């Protein structure tokens, strides 16, 4: 299916943000634009001397191919469980004060935020490490999928785990996934 044709696949996304919040954890999947300062404000605490904020924005190319648009889809109930499990594990492992993980769903214009992770900890080392690990775990495990549409209309499902393209949308015969894991 090209971007100019009605797609048989319609990313099915919640119309409102899906959130789970405790005093120290906030995880969210949202169709709305992400607001990094909201995540930062959530993790701010008098007992934390360090806050690390990661903002992931959508890139305009993949392997030098121009990407014209991106959309994220998810299995929200499962992805929320996974994000919450990641947040809980980071909190314990790095003795964080608070953590927030927020991911965009649906269309995400090029150059806009697709993921925001904010962590706070008493000291900077733990905050740096936890921020990085939370992102890597999320990319590895959260049940969220990115559809990249290339200029010219072709859509491709990305797979994080091998850094290669996934399956082209609507042209299964031309699977371009490289076996370079």
């Amino acid at each position, binding site marked *: 299916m090209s971007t100019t044709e009605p797609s048989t696949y319609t990313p099915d996304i919640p119309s409102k943000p899906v959130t789970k919040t405790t005093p120290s954890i906030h995880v969210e999947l949202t169709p709305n634009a992400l607001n990094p300062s909201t995540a930062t404000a959530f993790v701010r605490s008098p007992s934390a001397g360090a806050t690390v904020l990661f903002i992931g924005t959508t890139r305009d190319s993949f392997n030098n191919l121009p990407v014209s648009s991106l959309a994220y889809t998810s299995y929200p109930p*499962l992805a929320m469980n996974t994000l919450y499990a990641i947040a809980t594990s980071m909190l314990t492992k790095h003795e964080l004060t608070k953590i927030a993980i927020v991911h965009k769903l649906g269309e995400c214009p090029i150059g806009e935020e697709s993921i925001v992770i904010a962590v706070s900890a008493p000291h900077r080392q733990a905050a740096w490490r936890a921020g990085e690990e939370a*992102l890597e775990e999320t990319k590895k495990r959260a049940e969220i*999928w990115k*559809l990249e549409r290339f200029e010219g209309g072709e859509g491709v*499902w990305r797979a994080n785990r091998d850094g290669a393209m996934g*399956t082209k949308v609507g042209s299964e015969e031309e699977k371009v996934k490289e076996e370079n894991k």
Partner: protein
Amino acid sequence: MSAAKAPPGHFSILYFAAASSFTGKSSEHLPAPVSARSLFDELEQRYPGMRDKVLGSCAVTVNLEYVDVEDGEDADRAIEAGDEVAIIPPVSSG
């Protein structure tokens, strides 16, 4: 997101990303019970070529728990009427 409730004697199956593109659907209802081990055969029959092109790299959840449909004790369990099964291709958040 979740499929409508399955009719009696059926389970719901959700397809994401490449699985959705391949089947042309985001969800459907299939007759229950079926053993976890035979799920991919069942799907291959309905969507020829799906095993090689899609399912080989996919995980499966039943009621939000990952199930190894190819090996071990998990594979012997039955997917029952009313269960929510999902085909989970390699993820790509971030």
